């Protein structure tokens, strides 16, 4: 770039310009240093992390499944996130990203996702312990096709309130005629994986086991799955320390859970022999995982489940009990798998589009602003460098990931950023047209343009902030890049574009108004220069003469100024085209 011509005298604008440029240098070097430090010590990188749509991988959005009128609290969601994270980590998947977006939990896993891991994530259910009231073989519709003509509501017209208030969870008074009818008519195949089978914790639940072989009528929730601290599988130990060769699942409750479980186990053990009322059911996602019977009173909060377990099945149950203990249950709202090839091709398309867009902008600005375009291009390059560094640092520090929507935001930002320069240049040209010398025009134009740029960029930033706070998903990523580039744009215009113009105004090429400078006063139709220094009227061609006559008909301030000095405010149109 051109250096100031008069270094010795150093007028005020030049000093200011160098100070601004120094600050800009400090900022860029600072960002480089932060990023370099991140690369060396903090696991940072010189390239931003990519989102799944560019990198390939799987994104699963889980929506909470709630009873009517309920909403999930942030605390519940956070808890759900940490539990799902444990599950994913347990399956050995690296770099999974799990967080909340609005009311939903979003799981992003790069690379290919095996079925087992997917199942672990998707069985995002709520675990409940309920006492069994009734159990029986599952009915299928072929057995009883006509008895229930209204299968949607078999309990219509029957009493839904217990006649005698039940005293505890195992009290058969819970079984109202309506509930009995529902239980009798219940079709296990209706218990679809995705459909909700939820009942309020204080009410009984009709459901089946996971194999759809046994159906149950269960009492209200006695112990919540959140109270399970740990669940492991292991061989049953005999009192002498040997093993029986039988697999079992060992559960550890927390304090609350231990107390509650002690009460239940005392009561159920008292019902021993009255099968199925001595059983309690672990209910996961509305289906019964396991319904063991109580073989003793357990007061230490460390029950053991035994049965026909293999090593695998006991491990699976232990995992489900341990990791299935979500505070609320979820359904899969969307599941998105992007192949790595597709991601790469999208990234390429985005980059090519960005590059072509940039070249087009450069060509257009050169046409429009001649040598001044170099300032625009340099400003865009500076803005691009700062944006790149910021995104890399943010993806290291804040886990920001560049998505396709983000890239679109960046490409669009090229146009928005260039607009600040256009506003500025046009204001400088306006000042030149009013007859100011270049140095004065740059300062005066800047004052006006700066105000406009700040006000308009303020609106942009407001839009970005509001969208970022309120919107979800990809809209958020887009708002983020929009806001970031808006701020960077303002920084660049203050610390680079304006200082550069201040310096260039000192050079002969620009101040003499070279026809290629883009700030040629004669091309701009300036009427007089500086204080009372009038420019000699240029040779006005036919066209100019015609326009002059036209102009006389319509008086304006500038025209009157021109008329006052007796010189035609004509332009040397056609001199260079």
């Amino acid at each position, binding site marked *: 770039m051109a250096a100031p011509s008069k270094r010795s005298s150093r007028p005020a604008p030049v000093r200011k310009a160098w100070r601004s440029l120094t600050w800009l240098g400090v900022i860029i070097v600072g960002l480089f240093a932060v990023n370099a430090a991140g690369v060396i010590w903090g696991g940072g990188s010189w390239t931003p992390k990519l989102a799944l*749509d560019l990198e390939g991988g799987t994104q699963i959005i889980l929506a909470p499944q709630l009873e009517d009128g309920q909403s999930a609290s942030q605390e519940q969601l956070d808890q759900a996130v940490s539990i799902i994270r444990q599950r994913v980590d347990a399956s050995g998947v690296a770099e999974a990203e799990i967080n909340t977006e*609005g009311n939903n939990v979003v799981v992003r896993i790069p690379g*290919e996702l095996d079925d087992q891991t997917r199942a672990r994530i*998707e069985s995002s259910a709520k675990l409940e312990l309920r006492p069994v009231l009734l159990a029986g073989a599952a009915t299928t519709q072929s057995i009883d096709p006509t008895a229930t003509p209204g299968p949607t509501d078999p309990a219509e017209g029957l009493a839904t309130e217990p006649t005698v208030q039940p005293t505890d969870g195992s009290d058969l008074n819970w079984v109202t005629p309506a509930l009995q009818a529902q239980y009798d008519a219940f079709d296990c195949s209706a218990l679809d994986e*995705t459909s909700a089978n939820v009942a309020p914790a204080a009410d009984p639940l009709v459901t089946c086991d996971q194999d759809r072989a046994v159906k149950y009528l269960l009492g209200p929730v006695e112990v919540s799955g959140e109270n399970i601290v740990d669940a492991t599988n292991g061989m049953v130990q005999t009192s002498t320390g040997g093993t029986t060769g039988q697999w079992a699942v060992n559960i550890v409750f927390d304090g609350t859970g231990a107390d509650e479980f002690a009460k239940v186990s005392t009561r159920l053990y008292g019902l021993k022999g009255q099968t199925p009322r001595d059983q309690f059911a672990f209910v996961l996602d509305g289906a019964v995982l396991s319904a063991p019977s109580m073989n003793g009173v357990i007061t230490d909060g460390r029950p053991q489940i035994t049965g026909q377990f293999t090593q695998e099945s006991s491990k699976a149950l232990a995992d489900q009990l341990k990791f299935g203990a979500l505070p609320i249950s979820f*359904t899969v*709202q*969307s*599941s*998105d*798998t*992007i*192949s*790595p*090839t597709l991601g790469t*091709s*999208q990234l390429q*398309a*985005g980059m090519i*589009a960005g590059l*072509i*867009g*940039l070249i*087009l*902008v450069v060509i*257009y*600005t050169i*046409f429009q602003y001649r040598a001044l375009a170099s300032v625009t291009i340099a400003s865009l390059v500076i803005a691009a460098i700062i944006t790149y560094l910021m995104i890399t640092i943010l993806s290291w520090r804040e886990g920001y990931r560049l998505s*396709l929507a983000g890239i*679109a935001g960046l490409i*669009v930002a090229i*146009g928005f950023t260039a*607009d600040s320069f256009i*506003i500025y240049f*046009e204001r400088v*040209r*306006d000042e030149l*047209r009013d007859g100011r010398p270049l140095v004065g025009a740059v300062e005066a134009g800047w004052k006006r343009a700066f105000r*406009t740029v700040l006000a*308009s960029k*303020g*609106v942009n930033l407001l*839009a970005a902030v509001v*969208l970022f706070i*309120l*919107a979800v998903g990809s*809209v958020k990523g*887009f708002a983020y890049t929009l806001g970031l580039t808006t701020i960077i744009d303002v920084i660049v215009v203050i610390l680079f574009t304006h200082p550069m113009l201040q310096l260039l105004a000192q050079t002969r090429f620009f101040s003499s108004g070279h026809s290629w400078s883009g700030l040629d006063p004669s*091309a701009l*139709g300036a009427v007089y220069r500086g204080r009372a220094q009038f420019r000699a009227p240029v040779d006005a061609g036919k066209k100019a003469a015609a*326009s002059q006559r036209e*102009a006389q008909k*319509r*008086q*304006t301030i*500038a025209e009157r100024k021109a008329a006052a000095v007796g010189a035609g405010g004509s*332009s040397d149109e056609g*001199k*260079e*085209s």
Partner: protein
Amino acid sequence: MASRLTTFGNDLYTGKRSFNFVGGRRKWYSIVAVLLILSVVVPLVRGVNLSIEFRGGSQFQIAGVEEAAAGPAEAAVHEVVPGSVPRVAIVGDNGVRVQTEQLSQAESREVTTALAEAYGVPESEVTSTFIGPTWGADVTRQTIVGLIAFLLLAALIMAVYFRTWKMSLAAIIALLADLVATVGIYAAVGFEISPAAMIGILTILSYSLYDTVVVFDKIRENTAEDGAESRRTFPESVNLAVNQTLVRSINTSVVAALPVAAILFIGAGALGADTLRDISLALLIGILVGTWSTVFLAAPMYSQLREGEPAIRRHDEKVRKERERAGATDGRAAVPSA
């Protein structure tokens, strides 16, 4: 070319050449009204295509296919879900996209396997998307909340900055017109309304107001600097400001539209870059509509809102009387040119 636009700019700046944006507002309003009515009617008649994110369903994309044809996909889907009617589209040179109704997770995986076999590609090349019907509704609700919050805040901030709520009102009305026109034209083109398109439309909000603020700032400058001594009427001052920023409006709309147009044409050819394509179409329409609505709608409307104010009416009368006394021709602003 450049110098011609520069000269054009000079003429606009001095007022030698002037477009009558404010005075001829009836004409511009009617054009805008017709455009808005078309924007509402055409999509209603033709029907709006909502993307799979709003309809709910399952979508599969197969990349790197040697011979892209619809047949194998249909057969593969039928194999797994006999009753299904898949929509199969060929994307780019070697991509196939299959959309079906909502499949269960198990079915979805089976279809993925079947498609991979049918096209002879590894399973990792098959992208599957499952979208519940509530997803789109969720995003839309959040977006509308964001939209309303933004409009209220922006109106308030502009009223404070310009020290008149009338600029806010004119800007917001122009913004709403932009929204309707952008959505209307987008839908008329026949592209699906996807979340990416919604992002584009939201950006338009920001862009439209941004552009209006730039022009209004010049109007504020002109009308404030002229003060009581001005020899121009209020509508003439507004019109001059719009003309003086016209070159900027042209340059800005071109510079903003160029990169977006690049995304639109590159994105359209690439497989799976629907996000890019939808976002850029919405942006391209919105940038053009947003820039020109400021000139043809927001500025005339602002002038109209202010003209009735007693102080401005008195001033305008005085200007007109002086002109008559001076025997000069009527104000430039009333003489349309070009």
